[in-house]
């Protein structure tokens, strides 16, 4: 019995990552023809500042969606984290290490709270995290009201604005790359990753197979909470201030990037490669369109269409293949 099976070219072309890769190429080609500043490495590096925080949250969101869950409270977690950091800085004069700690701890605690309510009480994730979105950002509003906190220690700014040594490579970017590698290895090469796919495909069978489904789901929510805290630290550091309305609407964009990356919204499939290409594609697209002064809202039109086309393509190709198979059978 063979242990592997050779895939026909047809199959290879139909893989999401390949289609996505072609889309990435198209994005690069179109944008570079629209603006001479596009293919400039320095410019690209500089633009990653705007994107890395979201990208960092995309990684744990990938785990969550693969497990057939969802978390739409992440932007609220960012706001709350930032709020507590602001308070600590303004009223307690906290230094950078303390601020980082507070930011991460807030995110983690909130993630744990989400995880507990979802797994122990058994309420659907979408309802709990929807409430969470309102609640967490709401608390930030209650505490800060109309005001912004802008007093942060100087060293704090390095996290979101600094580069590695003398290069132009942003610290944030390196952080993201390391995280992406870790997440990729966990997803595809560890038992944890295997269990994620099992749960997303069939949580009942996973449970019957001895997998502690609730513990893993809980862990996913705690993880995304922690990383939202991290993103909040970086974001706050980058813009140097805290307002209760920061990161507004981020949750939906993050989910879009994950789905665009080939992760099926109902769970069970996905790859780190697809998600990373998706991040690259969306990031570059925003950058390129920004260069020719396309307003953000109009970019969203392109994103929206991209999402719909990306979903349709593999499905229709697969249907075509099915029809061919059935015809072959009849002959």
């Amino acid at each position, binding site marked *: *019995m*063979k242990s*592997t*099976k050779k895939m026909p070219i047809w199959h290879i072309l139909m893989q999401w990552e390949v289609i996505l890769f072609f889309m990435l190429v198209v994005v690069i080609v179109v944008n570079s023809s629209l603006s001479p500043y596009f293919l400039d490495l320095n410019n690209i590096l500089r633009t990653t500042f705007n994107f890395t925080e979201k990208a960092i949250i995309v990684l744990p969101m990938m785990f969550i969606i693969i497990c057939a869950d969802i978390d739409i409270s992440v932007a609220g977690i960012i706001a709350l984290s930032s709020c507590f950091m602001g308070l600590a800085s303004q009223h307690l004069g906290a230094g950078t290490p303390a601020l980082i700690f507070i930011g991460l701890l807030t995110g983690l605690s909130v993630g744990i709270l989400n995880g507990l309510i979802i797994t122990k009480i058994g309420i659907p994730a979408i309802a709990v995290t929807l409430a969470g979105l309102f609640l967490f950002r709401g608390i930030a509003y209650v505490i800060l009201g109309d005001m912004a906190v802008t007093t942060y220690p100087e060293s704090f700014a390095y996290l979101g604005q600094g580069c590695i040594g003398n290069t132009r490579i942003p610290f944030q970017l390196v952080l993201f790359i390391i995280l992406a590698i870790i997440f990729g290895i966990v997803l595809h*090469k560890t038992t944890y990753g295997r269990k994620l796919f*099992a749960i997303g*495909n069939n949580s009942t069978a996973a*449970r019957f197979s*001895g997998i502690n489904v609730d513990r893993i789901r809980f862990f996913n929510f705690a993880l995304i909470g922690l990383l939202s805290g991290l993103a909040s630290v970086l974001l706050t550091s980058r813009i140097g201030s805290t307002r209760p309305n920061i990161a507004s609407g981020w949750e939906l964009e993050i989910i879009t990037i994950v789905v665009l990356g080939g992760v099926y919204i109902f769970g069970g499939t996905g790859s780190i490669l697809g998600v990373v290409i998706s991040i690259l594609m969306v990031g570059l697209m925003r950058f390129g369109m920004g260069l020719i002064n396309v307003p953000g809202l109009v970019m969203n039109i392109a994103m929206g269409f991209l999402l719909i086309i990306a979903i349709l393509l593999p499905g229709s190709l697969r249907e075509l293949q099915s029809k061919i198979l059935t015809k072959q059978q009849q002959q």
Partner: protein
Amino acid sequence: MEQCLVEVRGIKKYFPGIKALDGVDFKIRAGEVHALIGENGAGKSTLVKLLTGVYQPTDGKILLRGKEVGFASPHTSQRAGIAAIHQEVTVFPELTVIENVFMGHHIKKPMGLIDWGQMREKTGALLEKLEVDIDPDARVKNLSVAERHLVEIIKALSFDVDVVIMDEPTSALSLEEVKDLYQIIRQLKKEGKAVIFISHKLDEVYEIADYFTVLRDGKYIGEGLVKEAGVDKIVAMMVGRSLSQIFPKVDVEQGPTIFRVKNLSKTGLFKDITFELHEGEILGFFGLVGSGRSEVMQVIFGIDQLSEGEIFINGEKVLIRNPTEALDKGLSYIPEDRQQQGAILKMNIRENVTLPIVNELSHARKFLNKKGELKVTQEYGSRLDIKASSWEQLVETLSGGNQQKVVLAKWLATKPKILILDEPTKGIDVPTKAAVHKFMGELAKQRLGMIMISSELPEILGMSDNIVVMHEGCIAARFTREEASAEKIIKAATGHI
């Protein structure tokens, strides 16, 4: 010669990779009760779906009263006078009985709005006619399995039909309810309707059917009058081989008690379950659907928690809080529903087979070990003779029998001492059935203890060393292999002891 009400000629239905029906002829006349017989996988359900417009034939003709028809949708077949009670209970759990009965054909007032009053009346009348005590306004999700089945029957009868198709209607009913069902069928016959009765239980066929048609592997095998045919002839047609080949029971000497359960209870599901299992023993658990057998096993395996009671493995009292703890103690459970509970269809054979032991096989309990996984998969896959083109093949593309083998392989790979099999041969073809039984015999020789839940009398009688019969959550009777008989078991299972 009476005209045929419904006739099917040369029907073929192909799916990608499967020939569900490959040339079937079938006819039924008004006022006739016609049994459609065949083992699981023979194509009976597919034929029903073709007659009710859920599927369309790949080839062949369907004739209604001599005229060729096509059923593009369930609507068209209903309007043509054909209604079916499908095997899978397809209800709307959040909706009331009334609505379940009338969904798709709500009664309207002259102005176009729904007439709830009339629908409630009609539902009440149907319930009375069948002497069933269910509140029409009850939400179906609050009904028991048997009650849901009755709602399905009422649903089919609410249509103005000439042909009623019943696909394995008695699987969830008690003896009383089965008798009621026979009454209903006789009544329908009197009214000149035709009833197509699908079953693989021959005793039912003999009780109620006039005529029969046998299918096997998607093909038409034969037909005839029930009165004239003999059991052996029908079985041979169904199965393609003799009975003794299916149940190769080998006698194995039993060893000491390896597993014991005392006063096990779970509020609302079962009470006071006590039994023991010996090395090399196959303990059969019989009972109707809803009697609580699977629930008991799921508590034992740690999927659910017990309310009261004790479990002993090799004489030592144990506490099993989750499947991982059960596995650690050498206890494995092969669930009943292989597609929902047993296998993960969109993952491949290797990933499925190694799932419960993925930690043990991995490097440092974290990193996946593909080589190790392949080795294990190869070992158990070939022992069970799983037919696939490679171990990377997705489980959903395998036949029902091979899927069950994958599930078996998965649990055997955990090297259990105690194996619980919940309906191990349900819905699989005859050759695989025989293979599974043979395998169980081998496991018994290897000193495993096995608990086998089954709803098939021949299987229980053929394979068990001892039999426990459950009824509505309690143990109704126990029999040794020598004491047991079909009649005694049925009586106990339906509460007549």
